[in-house]
């Protein structure tokens, strides 16, 4: 898809330009690679930067620049880096759910096996407190990776993705906020719309990205479009081990729930949490029972290849696959919508198009420099270079990777890579980013998340009530907090919640 990019200065004609032409040379990538060349000259030949990455993410490294932006001299991104600096990039892959374990093993072993580590953002507390992640403040000051400002990370990512305890410890590479995907062929069908209105008393608005406004309206759609006789169920939502928690947090916060109070006592088992768990259970009759045991590896093809569900929600990559005719059976029949919210009494002034909304930001990869790397500054410079507005802007459109656009500038001027991101998905993603809520980005994150996940899944499988699941979670969370020291966790929580979206902070009084 050739895209015409409009230069912002008045009077300048519209031309087809790549990012380099548009953004100029005084950019983070140029600063990084020039500095890297100078450092590399002092190092022995054969120096390598080793990156620990989740398997399946090579597409964000091994890509060629597009013709409009032929800045890699015809080479792939990492080949170009090596050509310019003499430093090779070695990618070590680990299964997606094992990268954290590998990183923490390194924090104990301190071998220096990895220079850069690509990790879920919620684990930043663990890797910082264990001493693994290097503080990037001085490098950020020196080289300016453009974390904020007009080329910076889209809010609120610019407030939490790269930080822990007020310092820069990471370079974020992924805006993994949840979008809602609906089958437009059903949603926009005039007969279906008339029948829906007749049954539920309100109109379907297929072209409105903020429809459905509420989780109740979403449930109506799911119930109405549950067609088991046609082989299509109303929805495909996660209810399995390791995935159950991912669907919960955003929905919980959108019901006015907060994970902890000011004293780090869990607030998850209050009426807000109980309502959300019950709502999650109530839609299960409209889903294929496999949601209890399957994860995203089944969710993706079931939605866009096998046409087994009217709707699903999840990462932006669902949209990319769903709109790719080479793999999707519904490439022309997908519409993108912002996650719904709840009508929360007292929060009306903070509603976003009809409800109090939040969109979970789970996974969300970040890049850390290992404190045990022999070439810390060089590793940092590679991260700054590859995640810069110019180079990163090409990386996020590549297939075979996990990175979704995280800088504001790309939403207006996203580079049309081989897979590309469809305009309507970009519009929806751009509208969703201000609603992004981070995962439990504190020390003990894995434990907090896993406890909640285990209990939620037991509730979904009918082993216990939603209330019991949340009460057990709250009790176990107290133990985790006490183990790490309540005062330290309070400090981390108070800092983390400053990264929440503005409307949520204002509602909870977190200013």
């Amino acid at each position: 898809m050739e895209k015409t990019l409009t230069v912002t200065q008045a009077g300048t004609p519209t031309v087809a330009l790549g990012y380099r032409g548009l953004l100029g040379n005084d950019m983070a990538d140029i600063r990084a690679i020039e500095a890297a060349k100078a450092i590399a000259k002092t190092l022995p030949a054969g120096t390598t930067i080793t990156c620990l990455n989740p398997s399946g993410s090579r597409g964000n490294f091994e890509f060629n620049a597009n013709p409009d932006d032929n800045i890699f001299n015809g080479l792939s991104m990492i080949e170009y880096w090596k050509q310019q600096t003499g430093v090779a990039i070695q990618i070590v892959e680990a299964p997606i759910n094992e990268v954290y374990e590998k990183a923490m093993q390194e924090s104990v072993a301190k071998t220096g096996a990895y220079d850069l580590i690509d990790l879920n953002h919620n684990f930043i507390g663990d890797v910082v407190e264990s001493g693994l992640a290097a503080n990037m403040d001085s490098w950020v000051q020196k080289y300016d990776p453009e974390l904020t400002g007009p080329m910076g990370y889209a809010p609120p990512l610019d407030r939490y993705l790269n930080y822990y305890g007020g310092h820069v410890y990471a370079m974020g590479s992924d805006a993994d906020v949840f979008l809602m995907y609906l089958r437009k062929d059903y949603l926009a069908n005039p007969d279906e719309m008339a029948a829906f209105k007749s049954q539920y008393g309100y109109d379907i608005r297929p072209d409105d990205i903020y429809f459905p406004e509420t989780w109740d309206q979403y449930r109506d759609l799911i119930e109405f479009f549950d067609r088991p006789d046609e082989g299509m169920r109303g929805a495909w939502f996660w209810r399995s081990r390791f995935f159950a928690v991912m669907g919960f947090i955003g929905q919980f916060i959108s019901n006015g729930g907060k994970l902890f109070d000011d004293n780090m006592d869990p607030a998850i088992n209050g009426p807000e949490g109980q309502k959300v768990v019950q709502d999650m259970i109530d839609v299960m009759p409209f889903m294929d029972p496999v949601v209890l045991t399957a994860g995203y590896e089944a969710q993706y093809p079931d939605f866009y290849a096998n046409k087994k569900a009217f709707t699903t929600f999840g990462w932006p990559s669902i949209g990319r696959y769903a709109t790719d005719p080479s793999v999707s059976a519904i490439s022309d029949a997908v519409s993108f919508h912002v996650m719904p919210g709840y009508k929360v009494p007292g929060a009306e002034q903070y509603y976003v198009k009809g409800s109090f909304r939040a969109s979970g930001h789970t996974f969300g990869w970040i890049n850390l420099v290992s404190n045990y790397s022999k070439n810390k500054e060089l590793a940092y410079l590679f991260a700054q270079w590859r995640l810069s507005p110019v180079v990163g802007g090409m990386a996020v459109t590549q297939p075979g990777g996990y990175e979704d656009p995280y800088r504001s500038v790309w939403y207006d001027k996203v580079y049309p890579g081989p897979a590309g991101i469809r305009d309507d998905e970009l519009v929806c993603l751009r509208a969703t980013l201000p609603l992004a809520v981070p995962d439990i980005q504190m020390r003990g994150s894995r434990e907090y998340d896993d406890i909640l996940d285990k209990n939620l899944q037991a509730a979904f499988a009918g082993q216990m009530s939603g209330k019991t699941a949340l009460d057990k979670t709250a009790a176990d969370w107290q133990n985790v907090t006490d183990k790490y020291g309540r005062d330290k966790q309070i400090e981390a929580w108070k800092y983390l919640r400053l990264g929440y979206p503005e409307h949520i902070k204002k509602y909870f009084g977190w200013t």
Partner: protein
Amino acid sequence: MKIKAKGGILVAPLQILLNLLIWVPFVLVIALSFFSWSATMGPNWWEAPFAGVRNYVDILQDEDFLMALGRTLIVVAVAVSLEFGIGLFLALLIASLPRGKKIITPIFLMPMMFLPIVTGYDFFMIFYGHGPLNAILSMLLGHEVMVEWLANSTTALFAIILADVWQWTPFMFLILYSAYMAAPEEPVKVARTLGASEAYIFRRITLPALRDVIMIALIIRSLECFKIFDVPWIMTAGGPGSATQSISIYMYLQGFKYWNLSYISAGALIVLAAIIIVTRYATKRLLIVEKK
């Protein structure tokens, strides 16, 4: 003497290496269990605060630990009993065949050659909602059967036991078959000549002759089954909830997901002590026989 001393010197380096590999980590685990250390704490483990026996007290009161232990014992009891019964039956059956033993025996042993993770994945697919089990049941019953076997705590545990029985019954079969074929035939011939029934011969001659081998097979298989990890991890990840969480999965989560290494060191030592006591008691008879 000279030859013995030379031999000792030659194996000494390997002996030292093996001892280091076994004892150094073991001593470290014991030491860790008396501290209060997690990898996410920050300081090195030897700088962590001393905890005394608190880890031991806490884990013995940990419901999840005790449930995982109990659940694992149930799996061992059921799975090993089934493996023994089926294995013995197959051993006697194959032994009674006039021909074809050399062809059938390797086929029976094949499941044992699979990696446990492959077995786990295969059985996950069998019990998956859209898998062959539901498809076959749908065909037989004439209507769609859509049971999520792995999302129910009882059927999920049953599925895991079934996977273990499928994979490790050949082990029992191999040991029992070998022992049976090596057992002296004269007592059996004499008993038949004297008119004894087959059931009597099996109960009073065959089983006693195999008793020691059976004991060894049961101990080995029980110890292995107790460590079960791959199959339940792949099939259910310990779910639904923690309904199929074996003691190994519990320790893996505590040790390598939550990084409560001191805590789980205490747990590992408690489990080890329990296994030593049970195994010592079980092998007592064998040791008495050996002394005689």
